[in-house]
């Protein structure tokens, strides 16, 4: 029987499996067939698992035995290649780990395995999650399913393209400066960057440890919420994780007060984004929400803070890739030369750029001027948001200043690429949760997206508002 992959949601699949409309093996096979057909041109997947059908059959056996299955049981998922799955190849999008096999499961994977999800494979990413287009992957770019001449975004380009291209029902990405939200915007999917600490980072290759978060990408807000609830929670293996503050369940009909940092969104937007954003605001007002202008004066410094703090943390996190205990080793003339040769050969240009920049801002003589200053301004940015959330429940901006750009368009000018992150980056600096959600299309059919931001631990507000918004 032919399953319409375009129309699926987690709840629909769950019901279909329980009603014997199709088997889990049939469902997984349908995705694998689609991957075989379309992955060569899209390049969303770096590795497709050959045991997915076997895992699917286990779910079918359970159903046949009359056992109840959980909501995520049998759900086909794609996982970004910086998240480790025991026994599976995990490249991080890098030559230095091209043939590396993970030796343990990330906590999020352990949780999803316990929930019965089926992993179809590992998706393409900018190398070690550094980039906004997946052009920095050592294994080729991921093309946008809506327009193959354009990028899927990054760094979770593969994960967003997989969901958008019907090559997985839901996927996991990571977000340090927008890497879930920006590709979601470019590909027309929903993506959540959770509150910093909501999801354990154990088993995920670290990029900037004080900003990184793992999050779900799916077609609907409800699907994102289901996966988030499965992966969240305090983990003994990641002591930056926490269960978070508890709140009274909110009434989904509550009229949230929405704030727009007016001066921040007033310039730099491509015309279609500007028009779509204006239309979105009108739509929200029609839905009965109060939309007011707010000021976040420190926001204009967020990108500068980000490009000091992140390379600094990156330079420390990348030092483990030294060709010694795992990954690519290239022989030099001496022990220390092995480091130079292995890292030189295995790490790509963007990674090297950030390592160099990070080494610079952390070095003696420059530390106070750059890193120390950036940390102070970071605190001030966070305080701007905390102040704003006294007056509003949600902050709204476009997710990106433009729709998906053409492959190759920005790759030669790193600063131009960095400027694309202007709306997503401040969120990571402040540790806030943010939901990227489709808001329309350009005249040529390219997806456009907006971003709802809530205060710490208020993913519930994002889901409530998001579900109302997507219905319109």
């Amino acid at each position: 029987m032919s399953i319409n992959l375009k129309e699926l949601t987690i709840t629909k699949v769950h019901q279909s499996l329980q009603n014997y409309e199709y088997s889990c093996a049939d469902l997984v096979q349908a995705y694998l067939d689609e991957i075989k057909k379309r992955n060569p041109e899209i390049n969303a997947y770096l590795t497709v698992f050959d045991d997915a059908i076997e895992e699917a059959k286990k779910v079918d056996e359970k159903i046949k035995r009359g056992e109840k299955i959980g909501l995520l049981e049998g759900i086909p998922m794609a996982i970004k290649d910086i998240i480790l799955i025991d026994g599976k190849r995990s490249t991080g999008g890098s030559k230095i780990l091209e043939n590396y096999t993970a030796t343990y499961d990330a906590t999020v994977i352990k949780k999803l395995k316990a929930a019965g999800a089926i992993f179809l494979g590992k998706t393409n990413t900018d190398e070690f999650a550094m980039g906004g287009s997946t052009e920095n992957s050592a294994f080729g770019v991921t093309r946008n399913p809506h327009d193959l001449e354009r990028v899927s975004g990054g760094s979770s380009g593969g994960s967003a393209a997989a969901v958008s291209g019907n090559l997985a029902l839901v996927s996991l990405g990571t977000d340090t400066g927008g890497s879930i939200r920006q590709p979601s915007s470019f590909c027309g999917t929903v993506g959540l960057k959770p509150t910093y600490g909501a999801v354990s980072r154990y088993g995920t290759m670290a990029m900037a440890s004080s900003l990184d978060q793992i999050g779900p990408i799916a077609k609907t807000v409800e699907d994102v919420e289901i996966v988030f609830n499965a992966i969240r929670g305090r983990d003994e293996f990641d002591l930056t994780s926490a269960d978070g503050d508890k709140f009274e369940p909110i009434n989904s009909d509550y009229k949230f007060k929405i704030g727009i940092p007016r001066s921040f969104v007033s310039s730099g937007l491509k015309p279609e984004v500007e028009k779509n954003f204006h239309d979105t605001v009108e739509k929200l007002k029609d839905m009965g929400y109060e939309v007011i202008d707010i000021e976040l004066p420190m926001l204009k410094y967020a990108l500068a803070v980000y490009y000091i703090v992140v390379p600094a943390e990156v330079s420390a996190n990348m030092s483990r890739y030294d060709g010694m205990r795992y990954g690519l080793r290239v022989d030099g003339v001496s022990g220390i030369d092995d480091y130079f040769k292995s890292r030189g050969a295995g790490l790509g240009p963007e990674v090297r750029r950030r390592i160099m920049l990070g080494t610079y801002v952390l070095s003696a003589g420059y530390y106070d001027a750059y890193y120390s200053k950036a940390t102070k301004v970071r605190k001030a940015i966070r305080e701007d948001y905390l102040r704003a959330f006294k007056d509003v429940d949600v902050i709204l901006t476009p997710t990106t200043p433009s729709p998906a750009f053409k492959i190759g368009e920005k790759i030669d000018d790193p600063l131009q690429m960095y400027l694309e992150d202007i709306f997503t980056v401040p969120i990571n600096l402040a540790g806030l949760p943010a939901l990227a959600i489709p808001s329309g299309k350009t005249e040529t059919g390219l997806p456009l997206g907006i971003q709802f931001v809530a205060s710490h631990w208020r993913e519930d507000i994002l889901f409530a508002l998001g579900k109302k918004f997507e219905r319109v």
Partner: protein
Amino acid sequence: MITREEVDKLANLARLDITDSEKDKLQRDLESILDYVNLLNEVQVPDEAEGFDTALVRNVMRNDDNAYESRIYTDKLIAEFPARSGNFLKVKQILGGDDNA
């Protein structure tokens, strides 16, 4: 603003083997990025903002117990060694070889 000597020094500190032509491009890229982040010079932040906001970041400790069973990961980890000698990781001589360390 960033000299070629500084680029060489950074590459050395970061243990990165970089070609001369790539160093040229890196020098230009780093200049352009540092130029942009110098925007922070115009920000005045009060001195008490020094250091981490302890409401945001604090050390979370755990007891050093509940170690996993010995040797359960050993084989998997050894399988990933680029070079091995039995169960040992094989590397080049560390001391007494290159004085440039």
